[in-house]
């Protein structure tokens, strides 16, 4: 994903490609700078040092959603707050796992069990080698909750 530049066009032609993950750079001149450059290049090409911990995130979802909604009956006001709280708390706890260079998106749906039919679907444009998601569905006698956490590697 890194490539030294040979073009003398001021980098304009490489501007678009540069923003797609290619960087145009002149090769460094000193041996120590070259060693540093090669080390960074190797790190970038290796992908994430630590993968997104799906199992730990599953556990966080079970814990946060369960404790927020286990004893809760559906009421519009409290459930609106619960959806916001679940999203914030899950994000904070996943962030606390401190997985380097991962961006996190949490989406929480809380709804009333009223006999209606509903479908939740999502699709992503990303790198399946580094990016992933975790999902949890909760139900009690009066409400349901679907929570998804997406972990996206910042290349």
């Amino acid at each position: 994903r890194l490539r030294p530049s040979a073009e003398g066009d001021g980098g304009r032609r490489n501007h678009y490609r540069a923003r797609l993950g290619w960087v145009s750079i002149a090769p460094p001149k000193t041996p120590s700078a070259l060693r540093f450059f090669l080390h960074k290049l190797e790190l970038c090409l290796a992908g994430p040092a630590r993968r997104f911990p799906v199992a730990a995130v599953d556990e966080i979802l079970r814990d946060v959603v369960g404790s927020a909604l286990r004893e809760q009956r559906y009421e519009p006001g409290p459930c609106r707050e619960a959806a916001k709280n679940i999203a914030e708390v899950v994000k904070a706890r996943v962030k606390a796992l401190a997985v380097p260079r991962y961006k996190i998106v949490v989406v929480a749906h809380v709804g009333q069990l009223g006999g209606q039919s509903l479908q939740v679907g999502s699709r992503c444009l990303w790198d399946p080698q580094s990016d992933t998601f975790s999902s949890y569905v909760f139900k009690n006698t009066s409400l349901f909750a679907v929570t998804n956490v997406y972990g996206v590697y910042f290349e």
Partner: protein
Amino acid sequence: MDEFQTGEEASFLVDEVSSIIKEAIEGAIGGNAYQHSKVNQWTTSVVEQTLSQLTKLGKPFKYIVTCVIMQKNGAGLHTASSCFWDNSSDGTCTVRWENKTMYCIVSAFGLAI
């Protein structure tokens, strides 16, 4: 080292994404009444159409698109999201659409790479 500027091609434009989402929803379910047998296909269609139009923008972003289609029968639904990202480059857009028989909520998240 060359410097590359953060021009328009590197930012998430909410209005642009909002119109992409609205077109995808109208194209997939506009004018239709809720049918349980079709909802899976509709959700897939909305999400895929949105994602392919976002890809065509050619911006250096990874995207997450979520779609909820719910039958209208008086039951309530609440959706919330929370993100850990770079505020200067990343963004989100949510569109809420409805007709007489169903609700459709589509959220698109763009994360710069």
